[in-house]
């Protein structure tokens, strides 16, 4: 079993829809959770960074962490064609050099105009 599981998609939704992206994980030591957006031929762009359980909102993006279920989500409201990209979840137990970041495999998202 992988430490982090992420549905690879592809996921295709119409413009304006609410998008839900999810990851599950097995390591209860993970405390820091991140979502990245990666456009083709570009490096990953950090979208959301959360610590422990709870919600965090930034514009059209909301990140949720449920540590009891070992489940994290990224919601995109009012989705736009420019949101079409690959979304990677990532997590780590700490921010020291001994704590590696574990990435999901990425979900390809396409927003249809």
């Amino acid at each position, binding site marked *: 079993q992988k430490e982090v599981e992420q549905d690879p998609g592809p996921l295709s939704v119409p413009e304006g829809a609410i998008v839900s992206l999810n990851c599950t994980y097995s390591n209860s030591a993970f405390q*820091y959770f*991140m979502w*990245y957006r990666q456009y083709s*031929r*570009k*490096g*990953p*762009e*950090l979208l959301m*960074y959360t610590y422990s359980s709870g919600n965090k909102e930034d514009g059209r993006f909301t990140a949720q962490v449920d540590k009891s279920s070992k489940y994290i989500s990224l919601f995109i409201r009012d989705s736009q064609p420019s949101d079409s990209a690959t979304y*990677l979840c*990532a997590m780590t137990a700490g*921010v*020291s*050099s001994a704590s*590696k*970041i574990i*990435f*999901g*495999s*990425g979900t390809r998202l396409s927003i249809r105009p």
Partner: protein
Amino acid sequence: SAVISQKPSRDICQRGTSLTIQCQVDSQVTMMFWYRQQPGQSLTLIATANQGSEATYESGFVIDKFPISRPNLTFSTLTVSNMSPEDSSIYLCSAAAQGHGYTFGSGTRLTVV
């Protein structure tokens, strides 16, 4: 969060030669990381580079093949040595800014012919 400038953005190299990739961070960071990303795949950690100490390599990666320098808190280089076509990939550097998660450079797309 930290902003990372990475160069070159792409290169085509002859087998047997070496390429050095540079990353400059706009703030001082303790840890920098080097990743490889194959097309359509997630990120694989090559090594962690801390200023003032030797880099720590992950299983499957060795210093002779991927020497790393970290001369100060804002700069690091990764060299891909004695290249073969199997080294064709995207190489990414990352830095951890405390409280702000991990950010990435824009990547170096390497093709070995």
